[in-house]
């Protein structure tokens, strides 16, 4: 019977995907309850603070999108959530850059972690584009000033016809829909990559599989 079902699942994309996921991302790796001892450093907290800030950015952004520009400029609650959105973005960028410094000086792309590093680089780029479209979506003189100055820079790159900073609808749509979805997906992929490969050991230390092997041998 089992041979039969094995035969049946041979060539099945679903079974192959399931097998790949079970091999590459077991639950012990996806939701670990223990970490190597070198993770006991404040430097490793920068990444999770960045994710926490992103959660605040998304939550406050959803509320702003629900009520609209007039509310966020004129009402007291609106101004509060506008400021909450702005300041959580500041925290997000500060801790993302601190996380970048920490990982750079640890050479975190070592031992097969290049995809994790590259997804981080792309996330950094997308977050800058998201912040830029956010500045353009404020619906105030600051946004107009930024748009009028930015249009020449964007046009000089040749993408002005496609990415028109003076088009509020386009910038707002990108800011509240496409770019945040991209950001969240990229961050999720980044975390999954970290879970798959394990947290990078300090330079000169044994990697996690080596430590596990050493502990098992003892």
């Amino acid at each position, binding site marked *: 019977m089992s041979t039969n079902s094995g035969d049946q699942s041979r060539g099945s994309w679903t079974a192959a995907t399931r097998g790949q996921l079970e091999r590459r991302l077991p639950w012990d790796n996806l939701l670990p309850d223990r970490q190597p001892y070198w993770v*006991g450093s404040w*430097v490793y*907290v920068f990444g999770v603070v960045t994710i926490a800030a992103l959660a605040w950015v998304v939550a406050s952004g959803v509320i702003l999108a629900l009520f609209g520009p007039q509310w966020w400029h004129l009402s007291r609650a609106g101004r509060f959530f506008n400021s909450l959105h702005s300041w959580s973005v500041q925290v997000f960028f*500060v801790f993302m850059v*601190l996380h970048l410094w*920490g990982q750079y000086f640890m050479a975190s792309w070592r031992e097969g972690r290049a995809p994790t590093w590259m997804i981080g680089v792309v996330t950094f780029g997308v977050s800058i584009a998201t912040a830029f479209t956010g500045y353009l979506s404020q619906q105030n003189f600051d946004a107009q000033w930024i748009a009028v100055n930015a249009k020449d820079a964007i046009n000089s790159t040749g993408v002005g016809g496609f990415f028109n900073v003076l088009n509020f609808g386009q910038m707002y749509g990108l800011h509240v829909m496409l770019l945040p979805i991209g950001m969240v997906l990229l961050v999720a992929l980044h975390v999954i990559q970290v879970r798959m490969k394990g947290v990078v050991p300090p330079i000169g230390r044994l990697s996690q599989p080596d430590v596990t092997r050493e*502990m098992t041998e003892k």
Partner: protein
Amino acid sequence: MDQPAGYLHAGFILISWPNLFLIGIMLVIFALALLLPFPGHAADDQTEKKS
């Protein structure tokens, strides 16, 4: 708050004081993260080494 920020201009370096201040704060946080002990870290480290 309603006025433009002041700028530090030294040679080719041109940066607003708030941005420079923020970079300074980030450097301080980074240094503190390296220097401050992590809660529970020492005990765990010894446990790992014993095993």
